């Protein structure tokens, strides 16, 4: 994929004239997707997609188009050249853009990984074998994905990976299930079997009669996947420079009233240890990390090229949301969590979070999957789903008791438009007085 993209880029750049600047972003994947339900196959197939985004700049005017490409080099050149001609014709019709900013210093880079994936039929066979006799539902995705950047200054960046992501639930009864994931670059049937056995072992507790608790404030442990869901909300307009300058950030009280989270809470965008490419669509290379919240206080905004030009700041991000979120660990050993929780709710997953009062950083959402009622430091019963409505300033602030010493690395299983390269590294969190409402 890289060689064909670079070749196409060279040919398109050669078509530029005068003061024209051309930015090219390429994204492609060859993916197998296999869905399971009731430990049987539901839907299985393959997707080959390739997209090229062309942005043509002439002085302070610019226009862009994203086109799908085929596997044929000559056809791709014909289509991309036609797109470039179309952009050239549109350029005089658009107004000048005072916030246009793109990299002019050439910083090429390359990051690739070898393919160690099994034939998809082998992975499917292993999953069906491991799930036999159980109620398994989920999806296995695997294949090559990659992308590149090229511009008319000669910069070339490339990023490619061969990865798999199997995410599944084992259901005990009704809506009670254990959710698991196995993701990586090198498939191991033994590792899958071990993860499946661990999940199956957790089903026993879910088979007990479920408990319902009335709305109220409860002591709560959010396991890493659940805590990632909660803290992910802060990335929804919380860290971006544009949201700060327009007063639309969910962290507005930090800006206006000096509000803070607990000193236990620190978050950063950790590009160097994440899975996403380290270059932006405008050709900037991202810093290795950006400290977003340090010891409970807001630290640094994520800044896109457009915001950098509009507000006079340095570029450090693409879209002003984290793609490699890293939340600092605490000092609570994971094997002491139940004991420290004592009596309360042990939640493995949260679901469908949204703002109930964004300027106040108040979030609503649901518990999901393996969530338990704990008494005397022991799991007593699965808990029926509960709705919460709680502010970040309480849950991550005055009521945050501890974060676990161990963290989990959670690759994003999202496949909207394309397989996501986002990830998060997150501890578990012990919180008191968490508000459940329904």
């Amino acid at each position: 994929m890289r060689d064909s993209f670079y070749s196409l880029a060279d040919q398109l750049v050669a078509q530029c004239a005068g003061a024209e600047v051309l930015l090219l972003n390429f994204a492609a994947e060859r993916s197998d997707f296999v869905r399971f339900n009731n430990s049987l196959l539901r839907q299985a197939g393959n997707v080959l997609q390739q997209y090229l985004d062309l942005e043509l700049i002439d002085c302070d005017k610019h226009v862009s188009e994203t086109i799908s490409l085929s596997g044929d080099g000559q056809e791709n050149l014909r289509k991309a050249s036609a797109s470039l001609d179309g952009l050239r014709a549109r350029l005089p019709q658009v107004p000048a853009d005072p916030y246009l900013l793109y990299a002019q210093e050439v910083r090429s880079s390359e990051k690739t990984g070898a393919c160690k994936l099994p034939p998809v039929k082998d992975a499917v066979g292993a999953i069906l074998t491991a799930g036999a006799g159980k109620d398994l539902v989920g999806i296995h995705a695997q294949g090559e994905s990659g992308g590149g950047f090229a511009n008319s200054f000669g910069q070339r960046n490339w990023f490619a990976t061969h990865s798999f992501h199997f995410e599944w639930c084992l259901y005990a009864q009704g809506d009670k299930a254990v959710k698991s994931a196995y993701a990586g670059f090198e498939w191991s049937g033994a590792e899958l079997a071990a993860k499946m056995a661990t999940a199956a072992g957790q089903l026993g507790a879910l088979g007990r009669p479920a408990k319902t608790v009335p709305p109220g404030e409860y002591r709560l442990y959010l396991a890493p996947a659940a805590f990632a869901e909660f803290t992910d909300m802060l990335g929804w307009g919380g860290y971006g420079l544009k949201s700060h300058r327009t007063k639309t950030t969910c962290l507005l009280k930090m800006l206006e009233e000096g509000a803070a989270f607990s000193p236990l809470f620190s978050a950063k965008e950790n590009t160097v240890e994440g899975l996403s490419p380290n270059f932006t669509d405008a050709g900037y290379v991202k810093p290795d990390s950006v400290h977003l919240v340090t010891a409970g206080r807001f630290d640094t905004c994520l800044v896109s090229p457009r915001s950098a030009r509009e507000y006079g700041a340095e570029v450090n991000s693409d879209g002003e949301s984290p793609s490699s979120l890293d939340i600092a660990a605490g000092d609570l050993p994971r094997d002491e969590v139940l004991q420290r929780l004592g009596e309360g709710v042990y939640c493995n997953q949260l679901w469908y979070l949204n703002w109930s009062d964004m300027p106040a950083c108040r979030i609503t959402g649901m518990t999901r999957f393996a969530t338990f009622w704990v008494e005397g430091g022991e799991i007593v019963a699965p808990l029926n789903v509960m709705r919460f409505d709680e502010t970040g300033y309480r849950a991550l602030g005055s009521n945050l008791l501890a974060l676990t010493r161990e963290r989990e690395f959670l690759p994003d299983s999202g496949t909207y438009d394309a397989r996501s390269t986002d990830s998060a590294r997150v501890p578990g969190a012990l919180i008191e007085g968490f508000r459940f409402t329904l």
Partner: protein
Amino acid sequence: MLETLESRFAQIQPAVDFCSLRYVREVGESLTVRQDVPEPAACSDDAGAMITVIHQGGLGYAATSDLTVEGLRRAAAKATDYAALTAGRSVTDFGALTMPAPVGEYVGPARVPWSSTSLGEKFEVLKAACAKLKVSDRIVDWHASIWHLAHETVYLTSTGGRVRQELSLVAPSLEAAANEGSDTQGRSLGSLRGNCRQGGLEVLEDCGFHTSSQRIAQEALELLGAENCPSGRMDVLLASDQMMLQIHESIGHPLELDRILGDERNYAGTSFVKPEMFGTYRYGSDLLNVTFDPTRPEQFASYGYDDDGLPAVKEFVIKDGLLVRGLGGVTSQARSGLPGVADSRACSWNRPPIDRMANLNVEPNGSTFDELVAAVERGVYMETNKSWSIDDSRNKFQFGCEYARLLENGKLTHVVKNPNYRGISATFWRSLKGVGNEATVGVFGTPYCGKGEPNQSIRVGHASPACLFGDVEVFGGE
């Protein structure tokens, strides 16, 4: 393109029980003016095809943006391999399905074609609408935008099916954010969860794009000075642009047959609705009549045929409060043995069809808006969705709106901010005690309904009158 695809499809069909080719091309354009500065004009041209093969009981698909004969041939081979992989170990015997072989054409409305004005003229329209949003220094962010998509599909089957469909989709948006200290309040024309319709540039006129800027900005300012929405159990009158969300989340998704069959349990969730409830379950009060209607041309998710070739037909899914029909296409109907609708849809060429709700509407009744207001002693009137959250069984929900006014002794009184309400789907619709007439109906939609593995974000439409609910748990912000 139809003839070219037919020729290529004829050349690449493998020797299998059934094969189809679904071609999709979408040409999009997105234009925005923010704070009176035009943002980069972005357009897209995305084309590809999915080959589906059913053979010896298995089903496989392969999607490709390589539309050459060789590219399609490779896709057909992969789809055939997948059909072999799934044969005998799938959730159903796909060979037993009766796949439609439709022949026809559907062209959606576009009275004023998108191409009838230049790019420069469109920017002038946006600049005019944007400028009118800045009514005060306290308006801290504002923008006007239009998104257009020209959508073309061709569906061919080895059994003689041959369908071409062409749609024009438009989504105008106006938004204003007002700030004072640590409070920011936003107001919009519905944004991309609102005035999304099929049509041409006439959609701008129809949804008030040219005339709403000042109202939106003024209402954002009003919210800044307003008290929080009160808390307690009371009547709630929902405008049609909030009913859209209420229908979508707590009727549409629970009735999707693939959720009921468990396909979505790892991601989008299951449903509190069970198969045995169809035909017997009282979903809402007698006033509740809900239709699946992909035949209403101006709605966002209208079409002539679904992506498995079923012809679009309007159907009641809830009649006089009684649940009568699920939302599922050919495959789910066969698997469940339940009546369904023509709603097997994919978001594009690179995702397989699954059960999607398309247009799902509440039918109007006889009450005028004033009569609905007059019926309330104490309550809140809410407009325009802002927040949405519901459990994985589509039961416990909490929704928030941009704008609200108190209802006191049969009259609309002062504005309140941060209006939220929560409830349980299984009982909420039984508290429906007033349904507005045709004059209260609004037509809305969104391109962002997420579901499926691999994930798909698809267009849906909802038309609804204003509706009055009793004894709802209402609350405000911090």
